[in-house]
């Protein structure tokens, strides 16, 4: 048991150290996120009421796109230099290895993204209760994205064309988007948001339970 925890921490630490040493990927992903958020208002003018209405949605869409683009980062280099192959040959369970990878992705890419989106929503002057709900939905929703995404990355990494990855992730992320936006819209008109947030929580628990197993199965398929 302790051995497994040790291995998990070692793998996690390794990915984090790599991310800290080579910051370009992580900074590019955040810059992409911020640029997209500032691009959206250009498309529907300077009507501040419209901006208020659409800002939470576009923060969510930008987070989704940024996650899609960043997911490949955690896995690709490890696939190319054979690290993944070494890990699958080791005697540790693949679910453990994939959980560590997924968690590393969330900490490196999604956690900073949530912090920045908080600042962004303050700059764009959203009401505080909307910011709170946005924060909670991002906190619950982005790990689901990392979890689902990691399965799809393992399935598609190294195949021709990177569009395939987005094609697989985006439809499956639709329910997350729908429930998050429902919660945010309810918050905007001062109504209860607990139902949607519980649903997101439920999806997160389901994803945490099943996604590492599916990622491990996908790894086995790709390594065979």
């Amino acid at each position, binding site marked *: 048991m302790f051995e497994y925890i040790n291995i998990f921490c070692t793998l996690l630490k390794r990915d984090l150290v790599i991310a800290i040493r080579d910051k370009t990927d992580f900074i590019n992903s955040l810059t992409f996120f911020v640029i997209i958020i500032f691009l959206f208002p250009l498309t529907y003018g300077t009507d501040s009421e419209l901006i208020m209405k659409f800002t939470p949605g576009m923060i969510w869409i930008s987070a989704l796109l940024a996650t899609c683009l960043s997911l490949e980062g955690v896995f690709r280099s490890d696939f190319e230099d054979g690290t993944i192959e070494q890990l699958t040959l080791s005697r540790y369970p693949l679910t453990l290895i994939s959980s560590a990878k997924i968690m590393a992705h969330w900490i490196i890419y999604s956690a900073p993204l949530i912090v920045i989106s908080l600042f962004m929503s303050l700059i764009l002057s959203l009401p505080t209760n909307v910011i709170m709900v946005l924060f909670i939905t991002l906190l619950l929703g982005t790990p689901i994205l990392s979890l*689902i995404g990691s*399965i*799809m990355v393992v*399935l*598609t990494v190294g*195949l*021709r*064309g990177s569009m*395939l990855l987005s*094609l*697989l992730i*985006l*439809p*499956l992320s*639709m*329910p997350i988007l*729908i429930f998050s936006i429902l919660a945010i819209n309810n918050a905007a008109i001062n109504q209860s948001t607990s139902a949607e947030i519980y649903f997101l929580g439920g999806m997160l628990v*389901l994803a945490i339970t099943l996604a590492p197993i*599916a990622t491990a*199965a*996908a790894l086995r*398929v*790709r390594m*065979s």
Partner: protein
Amino acid sequence: MYRWIQQFGSPKYFYDISLVVSKWIGVICLICFIAGLYGGLVIAPPDYQQGDSYRIIYIHVPASWMSLFVYMILAISGAITLIWRIKIADFVARSSAIIGASFTFLALATGAIWGKPMWGTYWVWDARLTSELILLFLYLGYIALQSSFEDRRVGARAGAILALIGVINIPIIHYSVEWWSTLHQGPTISKLDAPSIHYSMLIPLLLMAIAYKTFYIYTLLINIRSEIIESEYNATWVKKMIGD
């Protein structure tokens, strides 16, 4: 039991049986189509609420049933591919994807056309429509994923994993009408002993459902035969059978 599965899974056995079965299935399909269309378009009376527009039901409901049914076949044969690696299961999955996507597209398209006179709009973001749309994307993702592998076997197993993840969507589609109160009307036939529509309307619907299902099986069998010949290119039985 396992021996039976293996025998059924052997390509030659399957090929011989499918040649006989597919003819009969084709005949049943054609009869049911003609009878169902005649019953639905000519005999059945107009609906007291929706007038004649309800007649879209005869192509819309079977298509959406089949979209779920084919996906379940896809997922189950995916699971069999992952666990037992029976070749036939991979052929079934591969051949089901395109026809399943077609059924899903038809369910969405005919539903949109039906929605225009009934709801006043082609599309609403209601739970059932959205989850059916996700199903269409799942089919397309499956096709895209398994065809982008050079090694067929790896492609089949990667696709199987995707298909199994997508199964989560199936109960959501099925119960969406009951869980969320939405614009989409409830199921027409939830219990067979007391259906909510009259028999003159119900029987054509069931005939159309049989027609769709046999249509699926018919194309599936032909596709599987093609796959078998492609993969068993050098087997002696193929040479013997097609050679003469």
